[in-house]
């Protein structure tokens, strides 16, 4: 259904400790002092980009290098529970560029297993109740079975209530599946795609997929009614420690996240701060991160958006950027940076069967 778009800046209370510090500091220093103080207090986050990546290439090495470059300490993962969350929102064999490629999931799992972690893959597909079909259509089912990786169908697991750590939406809290609450580390593994309502779907938006359908429905319409940007922010503000490994090898442009066209990019993007990773992804696909509503909400609460606060590892985003085409709609046009990608009308892609 059509989501409501509201002024996200007006809707979000700034209640975190750093915001309080900034607020009192700004009062003390006066308006001229605020930008200086803000710079001093802002966190830096490392984001690693690898280019010329292939699904049949050495992804395990790439991901390991990316995690190390992002500041992940392998020793800290020994004996820990890692939950890998791919994006299987509505898999179809006809649209392979919609879902996280199984090779990415297996490679990441292998890195964490070699570091001594116990790894589980979990997903709550948002548009299909038949999660078994989602595993089959995406190819992930066979892959994780062959690798001996357990799968948690997050749509149907036991749930625990967690208070809303963001409070941008009116929701008091979230029901998260047990595996999510008990994880020591969640690894958001999205496919890099455009999104026809909010512009971009990557690490933060992917976490809609930890919300159980049995409590929120198919689609998770409770979240839509509470505001997509607000709930993206709130969910991420309420989760255990989450990092990001983005499948940017074969991406989706145009009418994402379901019906867009393939966009080969050959990228793997890794970071310990999903907000910084998403800001980098936005720049790569030709969007201004501060214009993406849920990123604007997340800025300085969950992580940095400004380029100067993000330490680039591996490739520079400027060297791999290639603007994605977007639907020609006013709410998407205003998200675009310069140079912008082409604006297109929604059309049924030639050669794609309806069934």
């Amino acid at each position: 259904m059509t989501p409501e778009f509201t002024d996200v800046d007006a809707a979000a209370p700034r209640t975190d400790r750093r915001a309080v510090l900034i607020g009192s500091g700004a009062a003390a220093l006066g308006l001229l002092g605020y930008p200086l103080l803000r710079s001093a207090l802002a966190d830096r986050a490392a984001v690693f980009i690898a280019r010329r990546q292939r699904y049949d290439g050495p992804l395990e090495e790439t991901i390991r290098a990316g995690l190390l470059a992002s500041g992940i300490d392998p020793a800290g993962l020994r004996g820990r529970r890692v939950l890998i969350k791919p994006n299987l929102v509505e898999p179809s064999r006809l649209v392979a560029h919609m879902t996280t490629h199984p090779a990415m999931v297996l490679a990441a799992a292998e890195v964490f297993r070699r570091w001594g972690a116990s790894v589980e893959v979990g997903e709550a597909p948002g548009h299909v109740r038949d999660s078994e079909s989602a595993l089959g259509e995406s190819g992930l089912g066979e892959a994780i079975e062959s690798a001996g990786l357990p799968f948690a169908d997050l749509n149907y697991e036991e749930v625990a209530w967690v208070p809303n750590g963001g409070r941008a939406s009116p929701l008091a809290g979230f029901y998260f599946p047990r595996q999510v609450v008990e994880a020591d580390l969640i690894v958001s593994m999205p496919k890099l795609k455009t999104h026809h309502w909010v512009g971009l779907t990557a690490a933060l938006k992917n976490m809609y997929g930890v919300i159980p359908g049995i409590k929120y429905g198919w689609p998770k319409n409770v979240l839509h009614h509470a505001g997509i940007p607000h709930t993206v922010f709130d969910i991420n503000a309420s989760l255990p420690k989450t990092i990001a490994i983005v499948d940017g090898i074969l991406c989706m442009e145009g009418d994402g996240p379901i019906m867009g066209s393939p966009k080969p990019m050959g990228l793997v993007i890794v970071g310990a701060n999903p907000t910084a990773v998403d800001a980098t992804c936005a720049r790569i696909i030709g969007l201004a991160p501060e214009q993406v509503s849920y990123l604007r909400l997340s800025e300085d609460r969950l992580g940095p958006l400004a380029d100067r606060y993000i330490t680039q590892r591996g490739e520079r985003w400027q060297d791999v950027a290639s603007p994605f085409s977007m639907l020609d709609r006013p709410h998407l046009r205003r998200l675009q940076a310069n140079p912008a990608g082409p604006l297109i009308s929604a059309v049924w892609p030639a050669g794609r069967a309806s069934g």
Partner: protein
Amino acid sequence: MALAALALAGHQRHAAAERVARRLAALQAGDGSLGITASQRDPHWPTGLAVLAWSVADEPGARQPGGFWQANIDRAVAWILSTRGETLPKAPDLGHDPTLEGWSWVEGTHSWIEPTAINLLALKATGRTGHPRARQAALLLVDRMFASGGCNYGNTIVLGQRLLPHVEPSGLALLALAGERDERRRIAASLDYVEANLSAATTSMSLAHGLIGLAAHGRSMPRSSSWLEQAARKRRGPAAHQSALLVLAALGEDCPLVRLALTPGGPA
């Protein structure tokens, strides 16, 4: 749990079905609704499934025929009729008619295919096929089907783009639409869509819903038994839920869900 009762009753395991029906009755809240589990009392979308289970437990041949569960059914149906999905003004960006009233997964949200189908079935099973809410629900289900057949969770076109159909919700919608007339021929197209998309590779939930949906319209697939066996062997997911669906689908036109969907009933 409700599907288990239906599957057991369909295979003449009436004592076991009755035990499940009693368990469901114990979980029914004072307002007539049932939650998703014993510990999670909301949302209440399983209420319609419980009506179906109690309806079968009341049928001739059951251990407690003749209205033993009628009070539970009446309270549950009253709850169903007291709730509705949120409607929206028509919008050029949406392909479906959002003013039609069905049921939502969670109170306070829009109507979607599967809860609407479940509650339409519940109304039909209790002789309320002609109830205005049942008529509106049938209209909604047909409206959310693609002209080329099939449906998904309940969106057809968004921002000018036609979306993809899926077998599982298509089968459930077809089951609920058993006996309905459709001059737009979307039901016929959806039957063709489901037939064309069932195979040995179809997973258990989709296969079962697809076959039951076809059976509700007098259609069957010659290799369905073999596919059901394969699906049961390969099954990966909620075991009891999937097993109940496969067992129900194996009954073909004798599936209790099919019988309930075709229950005669005039205006309430």
